[in-house]
């Protein structure tokens, strides 16, 4: 059962090559209606053209800044809320299940409400993304801070460390890995929800462009945008994994 990692890499590569080849072939022989899957070269040239336009970069700028704002708010509020809740055992026991239960409802349901209150511009996406990303961050902060190994807390008391010192030297460092996971999940949720909000109802941004391309029946352009988003997602995912692995290796 000792297959080399090279063998599985080969299969993955083969898979990718096969998929791309199939795409190319399908385009050549018009096997699939070009509305659903335009030929690969059409998408490629559309992408090339797109990158040169100013509106491409401004759309990306809008989306990125929306994500940054949404995530920033989610992090600050989430960590703060998580910290405050864990100050009291009673509060933790009462509020944690409430927050957890709220999270089990798809926050997407509330998107229309955000649009109603904040309008159709980026503000509603910031609010929506922040609201969605808040939950995993808050929940993980609560989990991390409330489940610090009792032995370390006992050791801190035995060493005479003050209450503040315990928070600083024991609780935060112990909770950090869990909180970091929450921050990671929160990021990808903010990322996806901003894009979702833009796709469903917006006037600008990447998501809006994808929806618009579909409305205008310009599949090549839509696919070009999709390729951009997929590439960005994969790069981000890879970067985050690499950073996490590096931190864990310490």
């Amino acid at each position, binding site marked *: *059962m000792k*297959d080399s*990692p090279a*063998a*599985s890499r080969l*299969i*993955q590569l083969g*898979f990718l090559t096969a998929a791309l080849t199939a795409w190319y072939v399908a385009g050549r022989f018009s096997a699939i209606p070009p*509305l*659903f899957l335009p030929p690969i070269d059409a998408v490629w040239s559309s992408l090339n053209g797109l990158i040169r336009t100013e509106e491409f970069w401004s759309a990306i700028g809008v989306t990125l800044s929306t994500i940054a704002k949404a995530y920033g708010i989610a992090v600050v509020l989430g960590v703060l809320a998580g910290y405050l809740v864990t100050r009291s055992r*009673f509060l933790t*026991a*009462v*509020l944690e*299940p*409430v927050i957890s*239960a709220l999270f*089990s*409802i*798809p926050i*997407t*349901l*509330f*998107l*229309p*409400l955000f*649009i*109603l*209150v904040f309008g159709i511009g980026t503000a509603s996406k910031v609010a929506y993304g922040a609201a969605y990303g808040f939950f995993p961050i808050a929940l993980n902060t609560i989990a991390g801070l409330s489940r610090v190994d009792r032995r370390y807390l006992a050791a801190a008391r035995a060493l005479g460390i003050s209450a503040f010192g315990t928070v600083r030297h024991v609780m935060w460092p112990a909770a950090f890995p869990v909180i970091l996971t929450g921050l990671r999940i929160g990021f*990808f949720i903010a*990322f*996806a929800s901003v*894009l*979702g909000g833009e*796709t*469903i*109802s917006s006037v600008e941004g*990447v*998501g809006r462009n*994808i*929806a618009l*391309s*579909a*409305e205008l029946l310009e*599949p090549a352009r*839509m*696919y070009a*945008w*999709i390729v951009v*988003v*997929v590439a960005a*997602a*994969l790069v981000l*995912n890879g970067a985050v994994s690499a950073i996490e692995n590096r931190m864990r290796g310490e």
Partner: protein
Amino acid sequence: MLAARAAILAVTLVAWEVAARPTGGADLIAPPSAIAQALFATVLRDGAIRSAILFTLFEVLCAYALAVAGGLVLGLAIGSTEMARRSFYPVVLLLYAIPQVVMLPLVTLVFGIGPAAKIAFGFSHGVFPVLVNVIAGMRNVNPLYVRAATAMGAQRADIIRHVMFPHMATSFFTGLRLAMTTTLLGVILAELYVSTAGVGYFTKLFAENFDPAPLFALIGILAVMAIALNELARSVERRFTHWRTASTS
């Protein structure tokens, strides 16, 4: 504990009611009383809205069934051999990392604006947790059990059935619960995007007419539906995995 939660709920509702009473401009967030009224007078009364909600439920259940079946079969296939897992699991995880919502316009192009698109989108969201959990669940099987079974003369299919399947059952049921949430998410996203009929039409209608009370009411019903489905999935998970926690305590 229950009293504390009920108290929080009550306080929240009261504060909300007080704060949202029209103060000339703060009309966009309806007070609970107006919402309750809209719920019974408008939303539930209207046959079109009722059937839109029920239809959404129908779409969710279809998508869910497909996602579970698909995820299970595919997961068993990928997870059954080391080679398959090492090759395809990273692909699955990579796909999982892509925000699917950007495919939504494409899905509507391909499937049209009817229920097919919503079921398809719900399926593509729901299949991943099942898939990932089945594969992961098959992973940590104690090789000792496999060896013992082989020594007793079991074939590959037998091993999958008697050793790996029960082992991954726990993960599978967890996946079932998660899949319910994500399927819901997918269907809702699709419904909101396609605003020419169904639930999405009504949310758009109420939003554009700046009519908050029925909007809140409609979303409230959907939220209740979401919670109910979640609880159902959670209790199924608990029922089938309680032996696990009992034996490890």
